[in-house]
């Protein structure tokens, strides 16, 4: 079968095509994009707004407190919320680099792979920093609960240190593994697919 025969067959399939009218096309412009990047952006915006509103609520609550450990706990969480807001803003900035796909297929694949790798690297790194922060905050809460002096006396004891340090290491290793597993599950297939398409073009 020659290419001319295929062209002839190809033309046949256009015959069954029902064109969309202009109103239908205009309505499409009002629709929501279902691209991967837009979905990621929507999720990040949701998290950012949720963190911001939660932070505002917590701030209003903290201001009504006279003092004591509850107030300090609220302030610690507010600082964490502020760090998270910066983290979400950086994520949005990285996601904005993905738009739009105007270039040729190969250049578009190269850009997507580069940006996706950058995004995943940032994701992984920020959690590597945040996990120890969570751990320290957890310890601080225990210190507040038991009184700072008693707490420091307790944690500096060798038998407690012997449990605490390996515990911290296990917590860090497990949480880092969990982040890597989660990212691979979410974006691993997409990255592999993009890389295999690019490899095909480079052969």
């Amino acid at each position, binding site marked *: 079968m020659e*290419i001319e025969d295929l062209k002839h*067959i*190809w033309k046949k399939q256009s015959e069954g095509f029902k064109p969309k009218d202009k109103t239908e*096309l205009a309505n499409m412009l009002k629709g929501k994009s279902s691209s991967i*990047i837009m979905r990621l952006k929507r999720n990040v915006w949701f998290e950012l707004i949720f963190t911001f509103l939660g932070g505002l609520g917590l701030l209003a609550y903290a201001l009504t407190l006279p003092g004591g450990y509850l107030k300090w706990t609220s302030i610690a969480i507010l600082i964490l919320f502020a760090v998270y807001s910066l983290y979400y803003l950086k994520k949005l900035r990285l996601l904005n680099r993905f738009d*739009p796909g105007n270039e040729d297929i190969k250049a578009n694949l190269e850009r997507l792979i580069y940006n996706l790798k950058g995004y995943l690297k940032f994701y992984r790194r920020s959690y590597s920093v945040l996990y120890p922060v969570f751990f320290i905050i957890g310890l601080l809460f225990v210190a507040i609960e038991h009184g700072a002096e008693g707490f420091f006396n307790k944690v500096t004891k060798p038998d407690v240190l012997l449990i605490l340090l390996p515990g911290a290491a296990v917590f860090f290793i497990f949480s880092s593994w969990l982040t890597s597993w989660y990212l691979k599950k979410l974006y691993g297939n*997409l990255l592999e697919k993009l890389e295999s398409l690019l490899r095909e073009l480079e052969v």
Partner: protein
Amino acid sequence: MTGDEKKFINLINEHQGLIHKVCIMYVSNPELRNDLFQEIVLQLWKSFHTFRGEAKITTWMYRIALNTAISGYRKQTRNVKTQDLDEVHYNISEHPGAEDGEENAQKLQWAIRQLSEIERAMVMMALEEIPYEEIAETVGITQNNVRVRMNRIREKLRKLMNV
């Protein structure tokens, strides 16, 4: 509706066959095909202000439509090939009296879907009689490379069509 929107809708209206064909080649489920159609229209609209007429309008449309179908959209990933095969067999056996032309068109559609996503993009443009120069520009490879790849694709299609 703004002037730009009107201009854009007219453009899409005139070339919607192109988007439709890209959708057919990348998605077999009609409902999901409609989603991809909308996604391509949205991506074209997002990039419309950057189109300055340096490239041919169809080259620009193919670039965005194919980029969206190949790498910017993820919905139907599982069992595509099995489903396509079933679909072809179902259609042919449901319409034993169907004309040869229709059957061949379905078989060609099936055969193209067995190719890789890059090959699909290239063969689709070739069947639309788009010159190799423009295919090379859309895919991002040299014209020579297009020629070599097209020979390979033609061979694959010939075998698949004779199955």
